[in-house]
Structures are given as structure tokens and as C-alpha cells.
């Protein structure tokens, strides 16, 4: 095992806890715990939002998908970044001005309907869990890949560290932790990539897609993960195949991947429907993610919420330049991952594979693993804070004046379900589940926010009907995808990437429902719209 690994992981955990404890010295009131007393500057806040947003799916998953499928999945990073533009254009400033802390709060402020508030709480908890489980799974899988230890210990370790940190430090501490973790994640991908690019240069710039197909750069032994056929020859699980340097990389029948022109050029076997559905889900889903919205409350006013979002767009956009390079270089230096199907590990394995097992390779390997740990810690902390916030105000019903002890109880409650789930469900596909969480958010909260902010005639009945129709349909699609049998043909696309039909459905039902119940438009709609859109300096 890599000797630098354990020290670097311990440093990340210690610094995380350390900043959390340091923040605790300032966290005295419940308001400090929940929203950092609204005194965080835009640059800190933007780094914190980015640190929270760049999850295991971004740090490991995107590179793994690119290694596997090529140019078609570049829409994932583009969509993950573009989501912040949609948030900036339609939501950021008015949401901050509404004074809402969580999505259920926004429902209360805008439509004053307790039923809608409860429905929104259900969706926040569902999306939060859907997003939290794969983070913990990613932690478990990384733990297995890097140390050879057991999956459950990795998931449990991250689960406990995160729960303790949120329960003890709350959001004030989390803000500094998240900001630190953004820069750690950026460094952890950016520094190794410089050395990787230099190595690629000195290796004589090997082609990513050679005419004759990929070859092994060094002698490699591959352990087959599932019964399959390799170039027509049947192999069994656990069988070891040895290849010499320069041997062609065979295709394993059970591993779904693209090769040659399919990988290099768009079109592949993904349909246009799936591509557009993915674009829609990621562009519109970001604004509906509970842990992203909570952050906007920590801005002092609407204009700074807007500026914060712009900085986030810059930070996130910079980060997403890097995973593509890992995916592409992985084609050259770690082709064995295309045989085992563990493509998510490419970021972790690439430094040692390309630079050799000397000090440099191992040091950089430890650095990317520390970055991966930061990714799990920060996203799960943010998700847990927001889910705990909803449990605190809507399930325990103690109100904003509740004690810090109640918030700690809410945190432990909110953490226990996903941690248990992640221990028992270990075979779900990480990046796919995260994509589905975006689809659910895009078809429930996106229409609610956009219409709630810009359309005076929205009613509570229309909003409830729209969230039930769009959110319910996408939730059902998620459950079928995760639990149901594999599908073929067009249902596979429509269920596997549901956003293209569930988002328009949610908007249509919401608009039609509101027009049919137009007598229920809140009587104080003018005052609400004034509050959402007028600059704070005009507040009377």
C-alpha cells in the first residue's frame, strides 16, 4: 500500500475537524448554526458553495464516465456548471430576497400553504438521501480500491465524521470547512495533471485512440470481476489474465464502454433524446438541490447572492476542465479499468499508473485520494446540514428558536437513514444515481421556484399538482431504474433519463392547475413580488 496515503487522509480529517472546532468558538446561537449569522463574504461563500457542490460524482465519476464513454458524456460537466447559470438567471437574487432558508420556507413565503410545505419537505429529504447515499458509497468504494479494506468501514467512517462535524459545528464551521475543501479538491486534481501531461510529453505523446486499438503501456495483470467473454473466449469471475507491454487491450463482454470512433466522436450509441434529457436535468436540476439553496441565505442581500453565484460559476467551471484530462489520459495509462469496469477509480489510480510507483507517483496518488475524501466529506456535510435543517424545522417542529440540542438530534436522525442504506445497497451505480437526483430536482423544485418567482398567477393547488405530477413521475422513474429490471428500447431512455418529459409535465400541470384555480391566488401577491424583486435599499 501507498505509504503516503494514511498520513494524507488523517491530515484531511484533522483539518476538517479542526476548522469545525475553530468555527465552534464562534457558533453560539441557533442562527449561527443554521445560517452562519448571514455574515459570510461572497468569495468565502462562493468557495464554500463550490466545495459543497463538487461531489464524488464530479471528482471521480466524471473522469470515469469520460474514460468509459468519451465525448458524449462531456455534457455532464457542462450541465453541472450550466446549472449555476440557470440558478443565477432565474432564482439567485429573488430567492435571497424572499428570506427563505429552505425550499419549504419558500413555499410558505410565496403561497402560504402548509400542505405544499410538507410536500416540499418530503422531496427535500428524498433528494437529499438520493444524493447522500451515493456519496457514502463512493467513500466505501474508494476505501476498498485504495486500501483494500472493507466497503462498510469506508462508508461508516465518512458517515460518522460528517455527522459529528455537522452536529458540533453547524453551518458557521461548515462554511470554512467547505471553502477549504474546494481549494483542496482543485489542487488535488490540478497539481497531478501537470506531471501527467509532462509524462505524456516525455513518453512521445502516445495517441489516445490508435488506429490498431488500445495497447497496454506496461505489463499488466487484470482480475476479471464477472463471468464474461474476452474476445470470444469465456472467462470466470476472479480469473487473472496477464498481458505484456504493447499487447492489445481486449474487449470484455460485460463491461459497457465505447471504443475507437464511438468514443472519439459524438453520436455513439446514446440517442439524441438521452442527450437532451441529460442537458435539461443538469441545467435545471441544480437550482432544486436542497444543499445548494440553503447556502444562498448566508448572503447578506440579493445583489451579493448574484455575485456569489457568478464566482461559483467561475470556480466550478475551472474545476471541470480537469476531470476530462484524467478520463482521456486514463485511456492511455489505465486501459485495464475498461476490462474490470471500475472506471470510477481512474482518478485515484492514474498518477501511479503513469508516473510509476516511485515517490512522485505515490505522493500524487495520496494527494488525489485526499481530494476524493474532501469531496465525500464536503458534499455529505452540506447535504446533511440541509436535510437536518428540514427535519429540525418541519419534522421536529421546534421552529427557528429551537435549541442547539434539537438541531443535533435532527442531524443524527437525518444521517442515520442514508448511512444504513449505504451499508446495505452497495451495487447502485454512483454517477447514474446522482444524475437521477438532478432529474427529480429539475421536475419538482425547478418549476416551483421559476413560476413562484416570475408568475403572479401561481396558486397553491397548481403548485401541489405540478410537484406531484413531475416530481412523482421522476421519483417513480428513479425507483424503477434503481430497483426494477433492466429495460430495452425507448422505455430504457424514457425511464433512465426522465427529465425530458417530466420537466415539461411539471410546468404544464402547474400552469394549468393554477389557471383553473385562479381564485386562490394569494391576496398579498403584490407585496410578495415587491419583496422578491425590489432591491433591499428600497425596503420600507
Amino acid at each position: 500500500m501507498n505509504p503516503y496515503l494514511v498520513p494524507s487522509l488523517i491530515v484531511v480529517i484533522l483539518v476538517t475537524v479542526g476548522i469545525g472546532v475553530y468555527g465552534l468558538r464562534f457558533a453560539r446561537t441557533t442562527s449561527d448554526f443554521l445560517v452562519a449569522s448571514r455574515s459570510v463574504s461572497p468569495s468565502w461563500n462562493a468557495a464554500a458553495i463550490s466545495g459543497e457542490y463538487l461531489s464524488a460524482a464530479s471528482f471521480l465519476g466524471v473522469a470515469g464516465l469520460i474514460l468509459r464513454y468519451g465525448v458524449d458524456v462531456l455534457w455532464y460537466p457542462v450541465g453541472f456548471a450550466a446549472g449555476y447559470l440557470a440558478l443565477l438567471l432565474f432564482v439567485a437574487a429573488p430567492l435571497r430576497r424572499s428570506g427563505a432558508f429552505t425550499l419549504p420556507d419558500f413555499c410558505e413565503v410565496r403561497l402560504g400553504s402548509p400542505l405544499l410545505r410538507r410536500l416540499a419537505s418530503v422531496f427535500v429529504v428524498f433528494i437529499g438521501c438520493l444524493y447522500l447515499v451515493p456519496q457514502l458509497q463512493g467513500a466505501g468504494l474508494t476505501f476498498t480500491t485504495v486500501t483494500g479494506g472493507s466497503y462498510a468501514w469506508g462508508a461508516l467512517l465518512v458517515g460518522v465524521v460528517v455527522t459529528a462535524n455537522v452536529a458540533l459545528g453547524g453551518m458557521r464551521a461548515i462554511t470554512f470547512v467547505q471553502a477549504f475543501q474546494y481549494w483542496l479538491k482543485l489542487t488535488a486534481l490540478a497539481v497531478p495533471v501537470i506531471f501527467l501531461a509532462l509524462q505524456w510529453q516525455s513518453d512521445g505523446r502516445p495517441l489516445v485512440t490508435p488506429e490498431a486499438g488500445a495497447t497496454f503501456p506496461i505489463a499488466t495483470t487484470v482480475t476479471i470481476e464477472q463471468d464474461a467473454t474476452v474476445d470470444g473466449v469465456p472467462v470466470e469471475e476472479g480469473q487473472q489474465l496477464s498481458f505484456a507491454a504493447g499487447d492489445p487491450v481486449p474487449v470484455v463482454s460485460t463491461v459497457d464502454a465505447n471504443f475507437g470512433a464511438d468514443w472519439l466522436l459524438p453520436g455513439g450509441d446514446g440517442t439524441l433524446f438521452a442527450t437532451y434529457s441529460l442537458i435539461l436535468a443538469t441545467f435545471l436540476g441544480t437550482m432544486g438541490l436542497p444543499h445548494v439553496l440553503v447556502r444562498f441565505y448566508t448572503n447578506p442581500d440579493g445583489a451579493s447572492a448574484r455575485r456569489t453565484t457568478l464566482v461559483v460559476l467561475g470556480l466550478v467551471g475551472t474545476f471541470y476542465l480537469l476531470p476530462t484530462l484524467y478520463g482521456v489520459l486514463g485511456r492511455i495509462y489505465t486501459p485495464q479499468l475498461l476490462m474490470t469496469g471500475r472506471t470510477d477509480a481512474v482518478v485515484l489510480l492514474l498518477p501511479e499508473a503513469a508516473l510509476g510507483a516511485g515517490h512522485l507517483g505515490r505522493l500524487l496518488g495520496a494527494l488525489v485520494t485526499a481530494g476524493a475524501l474532501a469531496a465525500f466529506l464536503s458534499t455529505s456535510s452540506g447535504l446533511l446540514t440541509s436535510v437536518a435543517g428540514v427535519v429540525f424545522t418541519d419534522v421536529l417542529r421546534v421552529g427557528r428558536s429551537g435549541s442547539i440540542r434539537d438541531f443535533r438530534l435532527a442531524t443524527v436522525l437525518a444521517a442515520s437513514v442514508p448511512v444504513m442504506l449505504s451499508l446495505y445497497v452497495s451495487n447502485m451505480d454512483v454517477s447514474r444515481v446522482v444524475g437521477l437526483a438532478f432529474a427529480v430536482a429539475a421536475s419538482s423544485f425547478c418549476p416551483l421556484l421559476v413560476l413562484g418567482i416570475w408568475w403572479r398567477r401561481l396558486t397553491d393547488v397548481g403548485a401541489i399538482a405540478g410537484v406531484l405530477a413531475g416530481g412523482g413521475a421522476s421519483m417513480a422513474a428513479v425507483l424503477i431504474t434503481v430497483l426494477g429490471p433492466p429495460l430495452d428500447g425507448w422505455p430504457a431512455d424514457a425511464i433512465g433519463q426522465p427529465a425530458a418529459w417530466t420537466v415539461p409535465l411539471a410546468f404544464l400541470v402547474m400552469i394549468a392547475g393554477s389557471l383553473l384555480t385562479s381564485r386562490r391566488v394569494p391576496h398579498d401577491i403584490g407585496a410578495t413580488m415587491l419583496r422578491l424583486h425590489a432591491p433591499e435599499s428600497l425596503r420600507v
Partner: protein
Amino acid sequence: MNAEDPSAAPRRTRVVLGEAAARRRPTDRTRSDLAEQTPVGEALVKGLMRAQLALALRLALVVVTALGALPLLFAVAPGVAAVKVFGVHLPWVLLGVLSFPFLIGVGWAYVRWAERNEQDFIALIRRPEQ
């Protein structure tokens, strides 16, 4: 407590406040139009919302036409996807690199123009009555 000294002071205070109130009057009227939801106030807020929404929709349209057209373009004209820039195929350059500065640029333009819309609105509210 000390009943002898405040006889002059409150009177002077009252005059100052009265002057200040008189000077701020036009602002206050428009402001109270806003606060009390008179037809004038409502029209002002609607105007601001329309301006902000139009701006957001225009910029969203720019992004949707620029990025959203790419999958269709690559599907309809595969030749475009085979073009190489600095030895890299065009779709990789467009999606993997150039899309990010493009998004940031659109966001920057939005923040600038949205803040200008708000400043126009504030100027409208605060403008002295003519």
C-alpha cells in the same frame, strides 16, 4: 426628572425632523406607493420584473441556441465533429474547454445588466417629483 431644561430642545428637534420630512416627501410618496400596493406601485414592480425576466430569458436563449444546438449539429452534420483544432477534435474543444468561459461570460453580462436594471428602478423611485 429634570423638568427645567427640555423646553427648547424638543421644539428644535421637531423643526429639524419636519424639514427633513418635507425634503424627502416625493421619495416617500413613491415609496409608499410601493409599500401600499397602489396601482402605481404595482405597475413599477411589474415593470422591474418584466425587465429582469426579459433579460434572463434573452440570455437563456443565447445559451440554449449556442449549446443546445450542438448535439443536433453533430448528429445532422457528422463532418463538423471530425474537424480538428490543434490536433483535437472540435466537439472535445467546444464542450470540454470553451463551454465554461462561455457560460461565465453570459453570467457576467447578466450580473452587470441586472444590476443596471435595479439601479434604474431605484433612480425611478428616488427621482424628485416634477
